[in-house]
């Protein structure tokens, strides 16, 4: 990937972050911290890798995205709107009555959502089912899934990993958003993850450890993961920063599930807008 494309992708990630904070501020409800930490992977999926058609959201051969950590759906909603799955104004209806943008993603309400999630630990098994269906039907589509580090406390995550390995799902890419914080405190404090990379490796995944907020590293890992047709499911363990891009939200447990007030919103917008990289003349 050339520098220009990388810059464009980084700017997409910045736009996505702006839309995330904007919709959560308007809703005065939602989860900014994890939405911002997963933003770079989300952007890479939708704006570089995924084969999707906004005009045909249920197209049978599309690539799938499963947001196992469903509470960070503002990131996916922003991506879907930017991609054209629905008008940008719909983002303003987040968490409002009658909105397709439920507090946690609903596949039958929101175009582009491939499975309803929100109860932690369950999405990865669904992603495995989708990747398995592709194998059973000899189809080429891939499945991308974002899993939280805290979410890895759930036993079902590891059950799903066993199945991914058994059925040689090399069409599955799992991104672990290792931002180090969960709802009640740091991961170390609540349930020490030890080594998530080693865990996924032990479950038979090919693992890439990266800085999950460095777009160049995300792209490099994704390229490798998608090129390796070796019968192994792939896991990108991305060290990330919860609240990435908004100084006062970064690494703060308190920003897991609260909305910014007007003053905080203004500051966040200033900081995020400053992240745009101007194209070289």
């Amino acid at each position, binding site marked *: 990937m050339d520098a220009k494309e990388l810059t464009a992708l980084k700017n997409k990630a910045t736009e996505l972050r702006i839309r995330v904070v904007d919709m959560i501020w308007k809703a005065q409800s939602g989860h900014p911290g994890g939405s911002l930490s997963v933003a770079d992977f989300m952007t890479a999926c939708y704006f570089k890798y995924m084969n999707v058609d906004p005009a045909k959201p249920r197209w*049978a051969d599309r690539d*799938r995205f*499963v947001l196992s950590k469903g509470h960070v759906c503002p990131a996916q909603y922003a991506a879907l709107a930017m991609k054209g799955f629905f008008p940008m104004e719909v983002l303003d209806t987040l968490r409002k009555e009658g909105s397709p943008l439920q507090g946690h993603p*609903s*596949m*039958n309400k929101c175009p582009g959502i*491939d*499975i*309803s*999630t*929100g*109860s932690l*630990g*369950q*999405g*990865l*098994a*669904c*992603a*495995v*089912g*989708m*990747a*398995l*269906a*592709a194998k*059973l*039907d000899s189809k080429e589509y891939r499945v991308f899934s974002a899993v939280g580090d805290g979410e890895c406390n759930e*036993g*079902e995550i590891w*059950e*799903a990993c*066993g*199945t991914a390995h*058994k*059925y040689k799902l090399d069409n599955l890419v799992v991104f672990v958003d290792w931002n180090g914080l969960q709802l009640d405190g740091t991961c170390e404090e609540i349930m020490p993850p030890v080594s998530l990379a080693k865990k996924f490796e032990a479950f038979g995944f090919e693992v890439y450890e990266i800085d999950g907020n460095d777009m160049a590293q995300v792209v490099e890992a994704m390229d490798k993961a998608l090129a390796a047709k070796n019968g192994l499911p792939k896991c990108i363990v991305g060290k990330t920063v919860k609240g990435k891009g908004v100084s006062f939200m970064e690494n703060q447990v308190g920003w897991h599930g609260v909305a910014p007030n007007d003053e905080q919103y203004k500051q966040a917008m200033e900081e995020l807008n400053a992240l745009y990289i101007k194209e070289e003349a």
Partner: protein
Amino acid sequence: METKKIPTRNGFGEAIVELGKENRDILVVDIDIGKSCKTGDFRKQLPEQYLNVGIAEQNGAGVAAGLATCGKIPFVVTYAAFGSMRICEMIRQEIAYPKLNVKIACSHGGVTPANDGASHQAIEDMGILRTIPNMTVVMPADFASAKALVKAAAAWEGPVYLRFTRDAVPVIYGEGESFEIGKAKQLREGKDVAILANGDTVCLALQAAETLAAEGIEARVLDVHTIKPLDEAAVNACIGEIGKLITVEDHNILNGLGSAVAEIIAERGEGKMKRIGIQDQFGQSAPYERLLEMNGITVENIVVQAKTLLK
């Protein structure tokens, strides 16, 4: 003449092979109790449609949901205690809420895993599943109806919970008898009392009706194989035409068939009923008939309750 007895799980085992041969999108998702749930033939004959995710029910439900989003019709196969309670929230979140075409097919319903004891006897399952929106809850009464209802479930768009017996139960229907999900089957006409049963208790209801007939009491007997959606028309007909109803089920008296019927009677404000079922208590390792007896799920008790209603 001795009545022929077959476990209804065998009906599932036969039907699923026939379904799988007709439609390659029909899949079995086993959870390492396939042998016991009678998927052995499917595994042998249709290996490419057969999956086994190990002893991991939660994952099995999720994998099935993912498969269903891609057009597959997966049957998650396990025991009723696990297929309802162990994976209850996975069914709710990933199968019922998105209304996916997943079937949960469970052997070992009610107290039929008698010797296994309370851990394996599922007495709460149908009630729990009944409270989840979009769910359909079915328990066939015998081998032939199990086969027919498994096929009906496969053709039904959306999630279905199917419950079979571990132990052998008497044959009631001939092969080829037709069944519709949500439509109770009338097995006997009568004007004095209505006995509504499902699963392994339908045969008890029929025997009780014969005993009552010998004493000049005519009982209508309904096989209410589907408790959700309940055949409200059939229940209302019993209330309107007879007014005295008895429900019989191999399930806790709370929240199963009896409760579903009681809801209609209560709202309608007419009709009298008696509920026969597990008396809100855990079972134990014991002979199947003894477990039923301990809870009053017997021909004799149905007869007694009928007479009480008629007093």
